[in-house]
């Protein structure tokens, strides 16, 4: 028999960025809030202790901060005609576990969004006509505009302590010649911190990009350019470019995380409780299936516990949000044959390409230094900043040098043709380790009818529940875009005058490779929108079918962005929290009438 606890006002599943933001907002509204985190407590101290944390073997290789796939994983197949098998080694993506979630181990690239990407289908139809969008491409509008979200982007940057350079503030040009991005939408205020300093490799990229007519700008980074105190009174130290961001706990308090930027303030309020090692199994619904009564979870001792609540927030990782909805019977599951149903629909990812340029020994790039959010980028081929008409694909890509530190085990890369071992490998490593520049086209990824999530009919997790099944593969549009971006980025690479370059892009016929890391930017599956027939949640991230369940996170994105998703995830969560505080709590019920 499950232990039934005393009811609380709100229960939050997962304590990453969205869980922490919701917890802060809802406790400010006076609610009694409990957050349930499946993993352990984690914090700068002791988990980020220097020098113990500077350990590539423990963190990157043995994946200390990531989901424990011996307990739950996903099954993966390329198409409905294949049999999905469990993913037994994390590779392509790295969901977090424990307090802070992926927000503790992320890099810190902190973008907003290109406004057209919020109305992707409408924009492409308006500019290129309905037929430009491939028949099986299921891109949609988010149902919310950049102007509506701007105050929330602004506040999130102040919470994160983001470093960057504005282009315009309230219509006034402020960023020309200083590293501002001319393609960036207008802002209500400047970044809370000035841009970080640029590494030498980023400076080389900047010079080369300018020489071929592009418009380089400083990456907005949630790694601090100086000490900072955020609106919650939480403090950050300055980033020292140690190069251990992605996959690590930052020992300098300089990478924004739920742990550094929000949790200290939550610890000061009596109406918040964080329960760790609490693995949520499902959202419980009443007999009408229209209202949630709380959640059930397995506690650290393996006991089943029911936590009743008036409001349920699903703040887990993208695919865990989708799985919880499917396991709980919230929303109609998506069916790729009919195109009907909404939960699991529009599962999208990232479409990345990388070029490495290798130099003589007199070009010192010092790749061992770096910061995860730092670099120089161009947006000339991002979003719809160029005419897609002649090229016949949908989507864009920022390109950048984002030197994040080359660590000793996996940080070596050599020119094409170098053997993978032996004395030639050693010589090449000695010759090139600190004389190379790596640049990426980050790449938007679109949603398609055949890429989706559902429950696996065969495989189950440690608790006896069906695993989530990913059906996913690259589509023609993805390959076209990737090849286009490689061609454009090559121009920048060549302008740097390297000895040689290596290109890592997609080729016609390439399939999704579960072992090859791109990014952890998985999107969709519980998408937001304006129509309950085509979206799982409304524009306030509220479930269409169960009004007291809200689902923030990249699971709400109808397709993948050119930019990194965290900035939009945070802004949408603040936007949703505002709607809960100002509308929902006064009159609980659907915020949008279907």
């Amino acid at each position, binding site marked *: 028999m499950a232990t039934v606890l005393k009811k609380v006002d709100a229960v939050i599943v997962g304590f990453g960025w969205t869980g922490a933001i919701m917890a802060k907002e809802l406790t400010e509204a006076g609610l009694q809030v409990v957050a349930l985190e499946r993993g352990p407590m984690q914090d700068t101290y002791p988990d980020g202790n220097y*020098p113990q944390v500077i350990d590539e073997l423990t963190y990157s290789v043995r994946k200390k901060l990531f989901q424990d796939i011996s307990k739950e994983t996903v099954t993966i197949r390329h198409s409905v005609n294949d049999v999905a098998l469990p993913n037994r080694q994390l590779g392509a993506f790295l969901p977090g576990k424990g307090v802070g979630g992926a927000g503790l181990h992320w890099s810190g690239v902190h973008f907003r969004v290109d406004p057209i990407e919020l109305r992707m289908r409408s924009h492409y139809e308006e500019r290129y006509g309905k037929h430009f969008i491939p028949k099986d491409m299921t891109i949609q509008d988010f149902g919310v505009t950049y102007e509506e979200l701007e105050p929330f982007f602004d506040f999130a940057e102040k919470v994160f302590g983001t470093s960057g350079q504005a282009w315009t503030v309230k219509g006034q040009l402020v960023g020309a010649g200083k590293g501002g991005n001319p393609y960036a939408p207008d802002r209500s205020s400047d970044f809370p911190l000035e841009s970080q300093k640029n590494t030498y490799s980023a400076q080389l990229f900047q010079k080369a990009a300018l020489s071929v007519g592009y418009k380089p700008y400083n990456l907005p980074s949630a790694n601090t350019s100086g*000490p900072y105190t955020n609106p919650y009174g939480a403090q950050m*130290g300055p980033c*020292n470019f*140690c190069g251990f961001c992605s996959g690590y706990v930052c*020992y300098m308090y300089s990478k924004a995380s739920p742990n550094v930027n929000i949790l*200290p303030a939550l610890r000061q309020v009596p109406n918040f409780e964080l329960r760790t090692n609490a693995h949520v199994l499902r959202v419980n619904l009443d007999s009408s299936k229209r209202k949630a009564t709380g959640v059930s979870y397995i506690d650290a001792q393996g006991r089943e516990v029911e936590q009743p609540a008036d409001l349920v927030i699903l703040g887990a990782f993208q695919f865990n949000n989708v799985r919880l909805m499917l396991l709980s019977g919230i929303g109609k599951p998506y069916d790729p044959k009919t195109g009907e149903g909404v939960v699991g629909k529009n599962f999208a990812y990232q479409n990345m390409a990388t070029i490495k340029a290798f130099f003589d020994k007199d070009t010192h790039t010092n790749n061992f230094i770096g910061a995860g959010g730092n670099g120089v980028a161009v947006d000339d081929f991002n979003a719809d900043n160029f005419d897609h008409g002649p090229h016949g694909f949908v989507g864009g890509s920022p390109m950048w040098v984002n030197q994040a530190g080359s660590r000793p085990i996996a940080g070596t890369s050599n020119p094409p043709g170098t053997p993978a071992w032996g004395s030639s490998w050693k010589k090449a490593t000695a010759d090139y380790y600190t004389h190379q520049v790596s640049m990426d086209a980050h790449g938007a990824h679109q949603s398609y009818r055949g890429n989706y999530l559902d429950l696996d009919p065969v495989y189950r997790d440690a608790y006896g529940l069906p695993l989530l099944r990913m059906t996913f593969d690259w589509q023609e549009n993805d390959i076209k875009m990737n090849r286009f971006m490689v061609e454009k980025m090559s121009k920048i690479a060549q302008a740097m005058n390297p000895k040689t370059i290596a290109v890592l892009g997609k080729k016609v016929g390439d399939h999704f490779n579960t072992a090859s890391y791109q990014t952890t930017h998985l999107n969709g599956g519980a998408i937001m929108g304006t129509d309950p027939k085509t979206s799982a949640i409304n524009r306030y991230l509220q479930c269409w079918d169960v009004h007291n369940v809200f689902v923030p996170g990249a699971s709400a994105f109808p397709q993948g962005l050119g930019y990194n998703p965290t900035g939009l995830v945070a802004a949408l969560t603040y936007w949703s929290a505002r709607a809960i505080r100002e509308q929902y709590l006064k009159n609980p019920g659907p915020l949008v009438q279907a």
Partner: protein
Amino acid sequence: MKKIIVAALMLCANLPAWAAESTDAQIKQGEYLARAGDCVACHTAKGGKPFAGGLGMETPIGTVYSTNITPDASGIGGYSFDDFDRAVRHGIGKSGSSLYPAMPFPSYARVSPADMQALYAYFMKGVEPVEQPNKETDIPWPLSMRWPLSIWRELFAPKVETHQAPVGADPVVSRGAYLVEGLGHCGACHTPRAITMQEKALSASESPLFLSGSAPLEGWIAKNLRGDHKDGLGSWSEDDLVLFLQTGRSDRGAVFGGMSDVVEHSMQYMTEADLRAIARYLKSLPPTDPDDKPHQYDKQVADALWRGDDSKPGASVYIDNCAACHRTDGQGYARVFPALAGNPVLQTEDATSLINIVLKGGSLPATHAAPSTFTMPDFAWRLSDEQIAAVVTFIRTSWGNQGAAVTASDVKSLRVDGLRQTTGVDLGLTSSK
């Protein structure tokens, strides 16, 4: 009673007029004053109920346990105001025997009658009663006899009288003196004690030894709070002090050791006006050293480190372990990573605190205004006695700092309970013989 209320109105300038009429307000004021006196710190056992006593305090003759001061029969429930006043200000318990001077009644002697009334109201009506019998001391006979305490009290406790500000004094400074010398009992830690354990001075007017720093207690020294630049507060501004007391951090330094609890449980609850009063009063104390001079930054070490020259002993240990936060120029980063250059903590005659913080590390307390618990990691496991001695000497003598060298044996003597260095034996690399 009416007389007392009138007296309260007249004496306690800080108490709003309505407070005297409202017991609730008086209880609230009493709670505030109990915070100012940090009563909870000593009168609560680790993990125990607030004010129920039972916290052991080491003294040279044995362990003394704090008493239950909740309004239960096992606590002070049966105390009249006079009983309460006699204990707090005079150091005489209800039974008539003298209290151990672990209770800072010599400082509390100057608390005003109105504040005593408020404190009494709070402890009788604002504190949850807890049934918990008091614990006897571990002091063996004949040292356990209480009558010598009466002699001590007669000799060293001052006459109970309300603090009178000198005519024409800055009222802010006077308020500060009242709080620091009275309820705050800052001198209990920060004033040196004589061999007979009494504080060498109980107020600024008595002696320049008042608040001039103490010998090590539980591994920390309570530093000089006077105007000395080298090891006192000469370089700190009034604003630095206010921020420090409120949040445990300022542009000049960060709290550690026993003072962390004081910030967390007491100082963060003080009003800005009272913190300013404390700060201004402390800033009014002249330096003990007649030749006191401001810190002169010397850029020689920073320049050498910039050139890659780590030949100065301790420099390489500093670069590898400390410089990421405290920087090669010793300037740190305001409010997050304290500057070491010119920092008085680094230049105290006795380096115990400094060695201890390198061994154990330290976390800032979370306060309402500054909730981040920035933590300096511990280095006991990683660095040898020689390395710690070298790096502590390095920071005490670089960037213009005027501290003296420390030795490996100084470090060794502080390696107690779990502060051992990790060795090959721990890692299974070599066998223990």
